[in-house]
């Protein structure tokens, strides 16, 4: 029996009477999901709704000499067949660049390819019909005359003089390059007693949301308004982009996001086929629906990772790290993705390598190159899994080389918990971290000494188990430094509006949105606590640009830390407003009263004074009985944006215990641990489940997931039978522990927790596999995913 009971509140400053902060209350929106009564975008049906299917390029790179749509137009049920040139009259192209990533360049991308397709899967023609099936039937009748062009697929040769340039207008295949140097790396390596250098490879993989991308666009010429139902993480961002590229004003666009069947960063970008869908709705003056099927998801949902990092570390014999150096190369497809760009992940690798360690002698280069494969962009834990695996991989290889325990070498080099504020090797600023406390907690939680003894015992029996670790830092609560300063209209602030209804319940309208992580519950917990009602008296409204404060949405682990703080402050503000009017009614001083469990009470004695229902009744229906000049304001709005720090870095450490079958090459995961510090824990169960889900996505990257391409740019495993994701039977139980270091930037003190698991797990599993195989004399495995084939090769068995 593992059902988690409510944990006792762990806070004091936020411990209002009946506080929900720190309690594992269930999410209020689960019943409809469990009864099949959710409304995902794929469920939305509107009157006169048509369906679009896309003709997609079978070639990685091809000129489009002509498109013959005559037969398709005659197919049953077809409403329209639209080419790229025709659609370009409705929607303008975009370029995915940000000014703070200096030198980053890309080419204009169209909703439908015009003249040339740049990856296998790019949409070149749209067919709109009464049903999706009829649209797909008619797609087969569209005759596209392709002329195949040389495909650039290998990032290693993308910059060679002999390689064709994908976009001649921008000169070469280099999207972005960043070079960074800090301290004195040359001196550091010269002082080292041992130097380890290796190349880490990270397979291209993707999010595989169970619900594919889905959008229903409804242009109503009578209202001159476009309503877009979209499974997106950033409704206001999309509102801006639809307006900008359709030539409309933002107030003409309403983006509605209901239930979303998984996001993980996949659904925070601009997709050409979704832009085409809104343009088709405008063109055809009726609702148009697009739901990606699974092969479309695999060849058009953003891919991620695909980094190759040559990395070097220097250490002294006592374990002191003396220098780091990395050279990262990543291929991002033919376009930098709009509007967040495809340079962010490589930039993050440079920022995050060296993590929370004291050694500041650091040299880095990252190059981002174009290629004729599907586009790559930000997916859960952007850059972190790479930087963490490189850093932690180097540390464990160095520890093995000098014969030092892997936890001991970390203790020697982690920034001291009392040395903050501090900065990492790349100059990233840490407000307060707890890496040593987290490590100590993990050490005891997993009984490290006991596991080492067990490992040694089993080795004598020919059983090869490994223990691996990964310390990490995680970017959360991003300020405007992430996107806003680069010119993207992506809000770093978020708002909440709280309103007392006529029966004493409250509505909270928030700019953050629910993707399944529990944002609705967390917002409700914050506002219920700060205002003073039970959670069943709170109704949360989210995911609707007509009805929520302007906000950034849900990404980069920002919903709880930023949206939660806004809700907390809005609840407090409404409490003051209600107490002001209650004071008028009761002829009492507002500051002598409080609101607790839906009742205005005397602050000190807790004696009941007046119910919220009665306050609301008087204010809404008998305001004539209030003293002259008293106007009740039963609504309050507050906003929040982190200001003191660019990011609220969280930290933690993971451990993996696994067994490698040295005959089959299979890895059995026995147990996984994670201790993390996301500051104030608003809902312990939700935090733990974010960590567990994140760890499993990271394990997917380490062991299974890879988008396999051939040299002609064809994806070979674009289905869920061949692209492997973690299954229940392969996954271990994951124990989660916490250290709590609140951020002082907000009253709530909460940081994000959505990506810590994914950040640390791949490197952690890699280290455990290498720990298991080290006594066999195997060369270290650094090429993810670690398939049985690669493990047997490392063992020299195949």
């Amino acid at each position, binding site marked *: 029996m593992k059902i988690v009971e409510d944990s006792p509140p762990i806070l004091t400053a936020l411990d209002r009477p009946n506080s929900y902060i720190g309690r594992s209350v269930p999410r209020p929106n689960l019943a409809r999901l469990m009864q099949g009564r959710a409304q995902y975008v794929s469920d939305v049906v509107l009157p006169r709704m048509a369906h679009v299917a896309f003709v997609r390029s079978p070639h990685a790179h091809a000129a489009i000499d002509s498109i013959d749509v005559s037969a398709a137009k005659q197919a049953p049920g077809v409403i329209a067949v639209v080419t790229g040139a025709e659609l370009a009259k409705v929607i303008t192209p975009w370029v995915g660049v940000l000014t703070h990533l200096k030198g980053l360049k890309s080419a204009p991308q169209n909703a439908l390819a015009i003249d040339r397709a740049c990856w296998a899967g790019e949409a070149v023609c749209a067919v709109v019909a009464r049903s999706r099936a009829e649209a797909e039937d008619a797609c087969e009748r569209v005759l596209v005359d392709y002329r195949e062009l040389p495909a650039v697929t290998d990032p290693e040769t993308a910059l060679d003089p002999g390689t064709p340039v994908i976009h001649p207008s921008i000169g070469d295949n280099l999207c972005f390059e960043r070079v960074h140097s800090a301290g004195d790396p040359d001196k550091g390596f010269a002082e080292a007693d041992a130097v380890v250098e290796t190349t880490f490879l990270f397979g291209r993989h993707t999010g595989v949301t169970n619900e594919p991308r889905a959008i229903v666009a409804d242009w109503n010429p009578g209202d001159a308004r476009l309503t877009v139902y979209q499974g997106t993480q950033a409704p206001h961002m999309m509102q801006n982009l639809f307006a900008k590229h359709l030539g409309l004003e933002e107030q003409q666009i309403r983006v509605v996001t209901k239930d979303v069947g998984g996001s993980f960063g996949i659904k925070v970008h601009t997709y050409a086929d979704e832009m085409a869908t809104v343009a088709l709705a405008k063109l055809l003056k009726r609702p148009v629906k697009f739901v990606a099927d699974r092969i479309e998801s695999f060849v058009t949902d953003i891919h991620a990772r695909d980094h190759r990092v040559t990395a070097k570390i220097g250490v002294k014999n006592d374990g002191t790290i003396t220098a780091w150096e990395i050279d990262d190369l990543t291929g991002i497809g033919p376009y930098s993705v709009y509007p967040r760009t495809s340079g962010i992940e490589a930039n993050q690798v440079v920022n995050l390598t060296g993590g929370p360690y004291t050694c500041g002698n650091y040299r880095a280069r990252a190059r981002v190159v174009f290629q004729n494969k599907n586009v790559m962009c930000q997916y859960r834990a952007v850059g972190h899994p790479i930087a963490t695996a490189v850093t932690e991989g180097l540390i464990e290889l160095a520890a093995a080389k000098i014969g030092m325990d892997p936890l001991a070498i970390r203790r020697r080099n982690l920034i001291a918990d009392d040395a903050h504020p501090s900065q990492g090797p790349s100059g990233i600023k840490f407000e307060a971290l707890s890496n040593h406390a987290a490590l100590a907690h993990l050490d005891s939680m997993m009984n490290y000494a006991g596991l080492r003894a067990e490992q040694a015992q089993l080795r004598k029996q020919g059983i090869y188990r490994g223990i691996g670790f990964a310390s990490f830092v995680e970017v959360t609560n991003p300020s405007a430094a992430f996107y806003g300063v680069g010119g993207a209209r992506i809000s770093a602030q978020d708002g909440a509006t709280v309103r007392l209804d006529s029966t004493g319940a409250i509505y909270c309208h928030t700019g953050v949105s629910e993707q399944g992580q529990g944002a609705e519950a967390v917002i409700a917990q914050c506002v219920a606590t700060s205002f003073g009602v039970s959670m069943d008296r709170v109704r949360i409204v989210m995911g609707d640009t007509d009805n929520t404060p302007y906000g950034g949405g849900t990404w980069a682990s920002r919903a709880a830390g930023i949206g939660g703080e806004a809700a907390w402050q809005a609840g407090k503000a409404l409490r003051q407003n209600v107490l002001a009017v209650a004071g008028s009614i009761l002829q009492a001083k507002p500051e002598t009263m409080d609101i607790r469990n839906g009742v205005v009470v005397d602050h000190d004695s807790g004696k009941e004074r007046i119910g919220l229902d009665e306050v609301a009744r008087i204010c809404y229906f008998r305001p004539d009985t209030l003293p002259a000049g008293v106007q009740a304001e039963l609504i309050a709005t507050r906003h929040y944006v982190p200001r003191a720090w660019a990011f609220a870095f969280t930290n933690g450490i993971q451990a993996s215990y696994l067994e490698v079958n040295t005959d089959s090459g299979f890895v059995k995961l026995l147990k996984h641990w994670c201790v993390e510090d996301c500051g104030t824990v608003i809902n312990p169960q939700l935090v733990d489940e974010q960590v567990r889900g994140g760890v499993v996505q990271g394990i997917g990257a380490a062991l299974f997931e890879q988008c396999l391409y051939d040299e002609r740019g064809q994806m070979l495993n674009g289905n869920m039978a061949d692209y492997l994701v973690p299954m*229940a039977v392969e996954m271990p139980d994951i124990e989660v522990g916490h250290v709590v270091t609140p951020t002082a930037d907000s009253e709530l003190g909460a940081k994000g927790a959505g990506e810590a698991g994914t950040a640390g797990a791949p490197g952690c599993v890699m280290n455990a596999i290498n720990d298991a195989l080290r006594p066999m004399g195997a060369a270290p495995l650094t090429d993810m995913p670690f398939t049985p084939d690669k493990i047997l090769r490392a063992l020299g068995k195949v």
Partner: protein
Amino acid sequence: MSGHDCDITLTVNGERVTERVDARQTLVDFLRDDLILTGSHVGCEHGVCGACTVRVDGVLVRGCLMLAAQCDGAHVETIEGVSDLGEIADLQAAFEKRNALQCGFCTPGMLLTAQELLARGGVPSRETIREQISGNYCRCTGYQAIVDAIESVAQTRAGAKR
């Protein structure tokens, strides 16, 4: 290609339904598009992910691998019907308490698959529970909470029988 229609009569969640369907239409598309029972989901469309799991004549099937035309005369049960009957109310309560779902897209199929195991009685091992739900992909939870919830219901049901 379309154009081959079939008339079918079947029982869906206890209601008699007569419809004309395209011969190529899958059961899950029929449920979702024709009957607007959108609790059964389309994930992979080739029988791998389990999001479209429904019961046909008491047996779990993949709604994307069965044709609507094959269901003439069948009794089909979806998550909506099974929920309304209260058959899995305890399982749903355990999923809620344990937060055994995040986005919820896999959940209808996961619940029906779990109920198949629980209906056999006894308290299955965690390994057996993990095996049972391995044909239902969840991308959010990492599975542990789901295993916990199913295990707790098995224990409660077994205890209640004693």
